[in-house]
């Protein structure tokens, strides 16, 4: 399978995603410049972390209008896999590919530390290699990660099981102290109704080898690899 990692002006984590995929998982990866039109046969597009367009106006507000995004939207509408990490998650919400919005951390502080996530659903191409209830330890590094959605949207997220990962403590329980940014319902990541677009605030690419403090991030990427291997069967829905 083939991965594409988009580079916006101000992206800074594209190299970490590239290295994790290429070195740790021996994947075919390309960088995609934001001004180029999307081309070629891609299986999964990653929108990486960073500060695209300086986070000016709102995080991701202007990146969503970069030339490449039209292709990303069409790709997603056809069922292509799109993964947004941190700023990437913000861009996907601004683009309407994911519901809700990311706002300023409730504490107003930029938080840079490892958190525990609980895998809530495993019938998606991003989580199918994991087990329901499994804990993943991933780093977060953000100032605007507080997830918000209105009550109607939240109800829909519950009904459709679109909340894929939540912030929890070391024992796997949600709690105010375990929620680093005040996110609604402790939400760390959601997918769309079609389950082919996923956004999360924590960084799986920074937990891809032991020397970085853990390998739990590989679970997300290897789920995609596994799902693409079985693409004909859309295995994650079985």
């Amino acid at each position: 399978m083939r991965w594409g990692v988009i580079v916006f002006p101000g992206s800074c984590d594209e190299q970490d995603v590239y290295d994790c995929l290429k070195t740790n998982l021996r994947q075919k990866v390309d960088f995609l410049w934001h001004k180029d039109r999307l081309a070629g046969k891609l299986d999964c597009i990653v929108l990486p972390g960073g500060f695209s367009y300086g986070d000016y106006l709102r995080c991701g507000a202007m990146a969503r209008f970069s030339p490449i995004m039209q292709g990303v939207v069409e790709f997603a509408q056809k069922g292509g896999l799109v993964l947004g990490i941190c700023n990437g998650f913000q861009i996907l919400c601004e683009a309407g590919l994911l519901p809700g919005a990311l706002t300023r951390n409730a504490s107003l502080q930029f938080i840079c530390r490892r958190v525990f996530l609980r895998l809530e659903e495993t019938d998606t191409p991003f989580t199918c290699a994991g087990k329901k209830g499994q804990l993943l330890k991933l780093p977060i590094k953000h100032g605007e990660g507080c997830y918000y959605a209105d009550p109607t949207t939240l109800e829909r997220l519950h009904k459709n099981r679109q909340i894929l990962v939540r912030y929890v403590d070391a024992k796997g329980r949600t709690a105010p102290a375990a929620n680093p940014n005040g996110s609604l319902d402790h939400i760390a990541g959601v997918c769309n109704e079609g389950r082919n677009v996923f956004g999360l605030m924590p960084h799986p690419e920074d937990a891809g080898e032991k020397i970085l403090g853990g390998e739990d991030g590989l679970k997300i990427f290897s789920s995609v690899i596994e799902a693409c291997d079985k693409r004909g069967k859309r295995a994650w829905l079985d």
Partner: protein
Amino acid sequence: MRVKIFVYLKDGVLDPQGKAVERSLHALGYKEVQDVRMGKYLEIELDAPSRQAAEERIREMCDKLLANPVIEDYRFEIE
């Protein structure tokens, strides 16, 4: 034509910046302050054949880019 646009958070959306400003005002002795919400102010200079045409375009700009409808509302004044 000059347009003044105010973009502000919807009711129910947490505003930690507003809360921080409220605390600072209290610390400065302005204890009568009960609530602070922070928004954005933009000034746009544009050409338009009429006020109505300008209104339509500004509304589009706000809906598309200047405000995020999930968390923000807006209003504007045309001079």
